[in-house]
């Protein structure tokens, strides 16, 4: 590797480091990640507790087939399939219990596939 290429790589790394520093400085701590897994006909966990006004990233996965995660109160409408997770970051601003359902039909037990978000 010649001197010019070494200089180029060093410059790029410096820029990337600077950019990362700016992002952290601007956003602070990354949002807490909450894992929610779906399979016929249940969510795990089936109760998730969030803190009011705290940003949180929902990481939604499926272990069998296509499922949905619909929370009208948070405007969440995610779809996950086997090997195809989905993410969304939200900040709940209202305390209470909020129902979430699977809105991707997954079989005869689908009608009561649900979980609860509790915001404290």
């Amino acid at each position, binding site marked *: 590797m010649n001197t010019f290429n070494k200089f180029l790589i060093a410059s790029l790394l410096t820029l990337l480091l600077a950019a990362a520093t700016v992002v952290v400085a601007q956003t602070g701590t990354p949002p807490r990640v909450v894992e929610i897994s779906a399979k016929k006909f249940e969510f795990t966990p089936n109760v998730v507790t969030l803190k009011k006004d705290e940003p949180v990233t929902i990481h939604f996965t499926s272990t069998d087939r296509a499922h949905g995660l*619909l929370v009208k109160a948070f405007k969440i409408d995610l779809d996950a399939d086997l090997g195809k997770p989905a993410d969304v970051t939200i900040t709940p601003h209202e305390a209470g219990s909020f*129902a979430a359902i699977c*809105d991707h*039909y997954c*079989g005869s037990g689908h009608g009561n596939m649900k979980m609860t978000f509790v915001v404290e």
Partner: protein
Amino acid sequence: MAKPFDRRSFMRLSAASLGAGALLRFMPFGTTVNGSTLGTLLGARNGEAPGPFSIVQLSDTHVGFQGPPDPLGTKAFERAVDAVNALDPQPDLILFTGDLTHDSEDPAEHAKRFAAFKTISGRLRVKKRMHVPGEHDAALDGGTLFREHFGETHYSFDHRGVHFVALDNVSAGKPIVGAEQIAWLKKDLARYPKTAPIVVFTHRPLFDLKPEWEWFTSDGDEVMNVLAPYDAVTVLYGHIHRLNHTTLGKSQHYAARSLIFAFPEPPATSTADKKPLPFDKTQPFRNLGIREITGNGARHTLSVNDVELTSRELSGTEGVQQILKTGDFL
């Protein structure tokens, strides 16, 4: 079956129920418009003169469903077929608003259930029968089996001066109509004046009735925005296994009883389980029923009559008192 069931008895039962609070409803259907002009327009499209019509809506037969709470299987569906066959005169057409079958993970088994549905519905004397899928028919296979048996999952046609639109809000797997179908709907309706009487039939409600129980369509607002300019829109649907009448703007939305089991009034709490009403062997067909829609495409009138299968004329096991109980209907 019970004694012959003519239209007079149907109307008498409806009128009796009206006394209990709420069954028979009469809706003016574009009353400000010159019916004959519009009728001529609609009639010219299919060569059919606008005029009186009679339609029956049957919903949520769930052929193949086995298990609690209802051990009746297809008996309510078969009884409904007998009741409709006894109507004199016969209705012009029958609308099935989804969940004709109960799904199965085994496609061959599900195909048998479609065949069983067609065997029973084939006993109807009315040969003009239109269908839309429910999620139990079409959500697992994207509507493949439904299309094999009944053709497209959305379509439209004119009948007696009324424009009918079948909408599919199930076969995407989610409660959604979808951009492609909404674009088709816009194009379909653009041919009609804003005063045209329109009947939409679909499976799920097109509004947020109880989202926690999946009683909604996620893009129902977009569908209703397309329909909003029209003066006389009636939406007939199933899915919720109980009666409901909701007015949204100028449109009227009617949910039909099922022919398998009933759901209760949804509780206010958002996390309550969705459980069918318990089966009562002394009143086996309670909360199950059929609907007749009558009207006149030339005069722009339409009425919706719901009759419970426990009516004496229908079941032979229950009296008219059964449908007079306050609270049976919304």
